[in-house]
């Protein structure tokens, strides 16, 4: 009887913690890809709808979707939606070189996550991985694999919904 009760309590605790861990964004404070002294944290993004994208320059799928992200960010100029790229290259120069080619005007915000903290925290099961986060820091949706135009269109609708339009 006692064992059963303990088992139920442990199961409930595990379930509650796993749900909590998956739903909210982890705390982070990472340097910008362009300027190491400029730190970007989850507090900086509070109150905004954010799309966190874990990417690397060695990942072909990540490179495919990047121009679409540039267009998506350009569409939301009101500062209430932000795409945050989290780069995990071992050499940040490769990422900078690629972004200099795709995102010449530096429309996208990019942090350099050498230790792959965000990828580990999100338990990214594929590359690239994207996570849509609402104004309260809750993960609304996760996308595994590169996003094509069709998926970006659906994502756009979702962002508009979150922004209350």
């Amino acid at each position, binding site marked *: 009887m006692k064992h059963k009760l303990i088992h139920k309590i442990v199961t409930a605790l595990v379930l509650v913690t796993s749900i909590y861990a998956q739903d909210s964004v982890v705390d982070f404070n990472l340097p910008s890809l362009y300027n190491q002294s400029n730190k970007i944290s989850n507090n900086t993004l509070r109150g905004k709808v954010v799309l966190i994208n874990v990417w*690397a320059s*060695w*990942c*072909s*799928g990540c490179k495919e979707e990047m121009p679409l992200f540039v267009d998506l960010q350009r569409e939301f100029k009101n500062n209430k939606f932000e795409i945050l790229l989290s780069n995990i290259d071992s050499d940040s120069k490769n990422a900078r070189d690629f972004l200099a080619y795709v995102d010449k005007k530096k429309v996208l915000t990019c942090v350099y996550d050498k230790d792959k903290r965000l990828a580990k925290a999100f338990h990214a*099961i*594929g*590359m690239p991985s994207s996570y849509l986060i609402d104004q309260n820091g809750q993960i609304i949706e996760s996308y595994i694999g590169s996003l094509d135009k069709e998926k970006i269109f659906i994502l756009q609708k979702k962002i508009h919904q979150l922004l209350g339009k």
Partner: protein
Amino acid sequence: MKYLLFITFVISFSGCSALTRVAPYEKEFLSQDKMSLTPLPERAEHEGHIFLIREASAGGESTFQGGCGCR
């Protein structure tokens, strides 16, 4: 003799426990050109296809996706 067989059996399978799964975000060096099955792109595609059929999993040979077979 039985003990000897048992010990041999245990030792031969103990290596299996040390297998580690490489996460998709840790495949930077596996994605390099020199790590492909063949240097010829046409042949790599063919060998990738054979690998896919044999292993019944898509994407396991490259960095794209996690080799879960979901794409």
